[in-house]
């Protein structure tokens, strides 16, 4: 008999054990088993192995199997019903249907691609035009189209923003009001001092490169925030974000927080020279405690809206990024609108503005040098405000301080007189 290799022998013996050989093969292998002891031994081993495997004991049954399984099935069913809007058995049908629809639509689009492309471009052009027209005719636009670093710094330090090129008209944050703040649009007070530019600030305060970068980015953020805080509309409408008055203090605090003590002294000198409304305190504070967040939009998108007839408090959804893009494209038109708005303000069109019954802020009528003045009643100082006043404080002007000292002397004198007259009695 031809010698067969071990693998082949194993296969034949395995089939022989399973009784799966043909009669001829069976006879041959039986002959081999009889004549070759090794083959017989191998067969015996395989046979023993099979017997051992067949006798392999079973594991003990799990009585709670169905209970556990039914719970899991129920969970799976619940999960599926949560995300499938139809029965699971329709999945394949729906998948086939969807694919067919996609194929049909795809074929139609490919066949009529020129028509489709021209339709889409035509529509997009129409939408673009409509948006452009609508944007310029009805919606609100920023009063300050491009607030650069210098203007942002001016606002941060002094709370004022020039509204025209000659700086004759300004928007000003006035804090003389007892109840809160006042946003005013009016004539600029003539001062002999030149406005503080970013370059002046750098030269005077001497910040490091890193500080310069931080202040630079803070001013950029402030500029964007101012742009979204004062808006003008087509129909003699103006909208002011009520949280604008706190922005200059927040910025002043942030700039002061970035500086080292000796730089803060120089900064305070600069502020004092220009009679800034706030003074910087030279006190060691942790930056993380004093740095304030500047959001890029007003709180809850709420604005005070002023029209020649009324004053309302309303929410305006504004996408400042898309607005900026539009501003760049329509800068000349925006300038025209701002000029027209200023003319209206100067001609006191807003003098007798009425107030909605639920309007929470006080609106005061215009005086000679003020065209619009909105008083915003602020709540009691919150944590943020306390943190602001850790590093800055309202400037005590010399004239007022002297007056206060005089009043104190008078009060002390009256008190003395009263006491002596009581003693005399």
């Amino acid at each position: 008999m031809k010698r067969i290799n071990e693998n082949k022998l194993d296969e034949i013996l395995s089939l022989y054990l399973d009784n799966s050989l043909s009669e001829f093969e069976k006879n041959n292998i039986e002959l081999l088993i009889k004549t070759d002891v090794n083959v017989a031994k191998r067969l015996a081993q395989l046979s023993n192995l099979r017997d051992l495997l067949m006798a392999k004991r079973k594991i003990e049954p799990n009585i709670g199997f169905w209970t556990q399984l039914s719970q899991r099935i129920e969970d799976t069913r619940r999960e599926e019903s949560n995300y499938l809007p139809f029965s699971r058995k329709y999945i394949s049908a729906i998948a086939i249907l969807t694919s067919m629809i996609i194929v049909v639509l795809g074929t139609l689009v490919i066949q009529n691609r020129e028509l489709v492309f021209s339709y889409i471009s035509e529509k997009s052009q129409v939408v673009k035009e409509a948006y452009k027209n609508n944007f310029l005719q009805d919606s609100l636009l920023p009063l300050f189209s491009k607030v650069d670093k210098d203007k942002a710094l001016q606002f941060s330090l002094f709370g004022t923003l020039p509204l025209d090129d000659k700086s004759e008209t300004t928007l000003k944050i006035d804090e003389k009001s007892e109840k809160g703040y006042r946003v005013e649009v009016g004539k600029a007070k003539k001062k002999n001092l030149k406005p503080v530019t970013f370059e002046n600030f750098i030269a005077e305060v001497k910040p490091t490169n890193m500080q310069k970068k931080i202040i630079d980015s803070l001013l950029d953020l402030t500029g964007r925030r101012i742009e979204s805080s004062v808006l003008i509309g087509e129909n003699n409408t103006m909208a002011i974000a009520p949280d604008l008055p706190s922005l200059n203090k927040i910025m002043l605090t942030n700039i002061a927080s970035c500086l080292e003590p000796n730089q803060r002294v120089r900064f305070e000198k600069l502020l004092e020279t220009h009679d800034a409304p706030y003074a910087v305190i030279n006190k060691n504070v942790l930056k993380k405690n004093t740095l304030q967040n500047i959001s890029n939009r007003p709180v809850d998108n709420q604005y005070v809206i002023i029209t020649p007839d009324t004053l309302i408090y309303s929410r305006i959804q504004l996408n400042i990024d898309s607005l900026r893009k539009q501003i760049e494209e329509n800068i000349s038109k925006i300038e025209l609108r701002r000029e027209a708005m200023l003319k209206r303000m100067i001609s006191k069109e807003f003098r007798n503005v009425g107030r909605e019954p639920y309007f929470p802020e006080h609106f005061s009528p215009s005086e000679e040098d003020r065209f619009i003045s909105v008083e915003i009643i602020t709540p009691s100082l919150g944590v943020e405000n306390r943190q602001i006043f850790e590093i800055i404080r309202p400037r005590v002007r010399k004239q007022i301080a002297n007056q206060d000292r005089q009043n104190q002397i008078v009060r002390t004198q009256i008190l003395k007189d009263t006491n002596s007259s009581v003693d005399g009695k």
Partner: protein
Amino acid sequence: MRQIRSVSGMALHLSGVNWKVSNHEPTVGVIERSFVTSHQNKNIKIMTNEKTLTITKNALQKIEDEAIISAFQSGDKDAYRLLVERYQEKIRNLLFSIFHDRDFIDDLAQEVFIKAYQALPTFRFESSFYTWLYKIAVNKSRDELRKKKLRRFFSFQNLDEGINNEINIRLSVSPENRDTQEIVSLGLQTLPEKFKTAVILKDIEGLPYEEIAKIMNCELGTVKSRISRGRAMLRKALKPLLDEAKV
């Protein structure tokens, strides 16, 4: 037609084991507790009452899988319990032979039955239910073995070496104190997955070559070759144990 034949067959059979059969309405047996299966479109109802509960268990064994699946596909989801109870131990034992891990097999067996539950509505009676169920179990265990292999690869473990050492230690024990079954199970773990599954299905589960080919989704010749090679590998791994037996 298959469904009607199966259910009719079940009706006849159950009528012979003390089931009430209405003359007006052919009524077939089952099921436990308050479980009622209707097959109204085939004019057949499955009823139950307290008395019949005792004979239900016996009668259940004689109901064909196809009849239960038909009931399931007709909307009686509770009928699935009969299939689970019929095959749960087989599947658990199959998975235990493959993995030799008691803690893990119940979870895996449940996953197999969940998969079967989800696919049963589309079961087309092209093979027997148990072949189909075994196929799911084998595929599931193949996936699981792959995952285990991957985990071992990333944890730099050499499992085969550990098993071979354990086999040798266990073989060094005197024959009367030796757990032969455990050694055989360990020996199976040294086989590559495709040989191991083929040997388990043939020698432990006792399935014919044709069924194994369907379950493993391969040719008949491939199955024969895998079984013989698997047995040969196992013979080598357990040679000292097998030599002790008389020739």
